[in-house]
């Protein structure tokens, strides 16, 4: 398989995931418990109290989508984006584990997120390595 294609899939994988998460968060921010996506993504619990903070998170997630699409335009030169994306992913994983610890989410959900993020992180590290090798050759 073409190395550049693997790298570009990495960017689009992240961008699509982020875009879907952003949409889900916007619904949660404005509709609270009425959101059709409650129970999915980051908004595991609906509620008016955190709508304000949810807006902040949604803006960040949405902006990151654009960032990944921008990186995809020059996939090799902008390979640093792979490592930069891993920072929030790592932080979100810690948060998810703490949420399970405080009994806010079920074990199955925590496990699901963990598996998903481990796959994502491994794929991103591979993409960064491939992009690095490609830039050196």
């Amino acid at each position, binding site marked *: 398989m073409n190395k550049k294609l693997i790298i570009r899939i990495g960017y689009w994988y992240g961008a699509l995931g982020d875009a879907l998460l952003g949409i889900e968060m*916007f619904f949660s*921010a*404005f509709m609270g418990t009425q959101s059709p996506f409650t129970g999915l993504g*980051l908004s*595991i*619990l609906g*509620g*008016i*109290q*955190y*709508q*304000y*903070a*949810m*807006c*902040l*998170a*949604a*803006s*960040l*997630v*949405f*902006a*990151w*989508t*654009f*960032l990944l699409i*921008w990186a995809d335009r020059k996939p090799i030169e902008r390979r*640093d984006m792979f490592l*930069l*994306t891993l*920072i*929030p*992913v*790592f*932080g*979100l994983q*810690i*948060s998810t584990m*703490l*949420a399970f610890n*405080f009994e*806010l989410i079920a074990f199955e959900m925590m496990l699901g997120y963990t598996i998903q993020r481990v796959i994502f992180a491994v794929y991103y590290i591979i993409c960064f390595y491939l992009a690095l090798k490609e830039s050196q050759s």
Partner: protein
Amino acid sequence: MESKQKRMLFIRFCYWLAAILDALLAGDLLLYVLFGTTIYLQYPTLTPITQFLARQVIPLVIGWTILLIWAVQKPVERRIILIFTALPLLLLGILLDLVLLLLGNKSSSLGTNLISFIIQMILMILMLIGFIIANQLKKINSKWNDGDLQ
């Protein structure tokens, strides 16, 4: 040359201002998670749910801070980060805050929103100006390079 240096200084200032404000926001959220109090956000409630969300936001805010610091290493080449910070992020933040305020959300008061609105507006304008200047510098650099080649 001197003017070019001043422009570069302004662009760097834009990146650093946003990065510092972002880091302060992360610190404020961290205070909220650890001690249930905030300086800037003035969150009225402290529940496990709001704490959970604050924990989710912190890595995103820290990630963006690092992104800005990464961009400032090559301020002209990575000028798109200024636009991404200004338009999707700050503009969206302002609009969403306003919508919540209009919806009468308990967590967003006029006082808090006004301060937040002013800070975000100033920052957004600065970032946009920074982007325009960076774009001009890029064009000047390209012309110089073309001139060298010819």
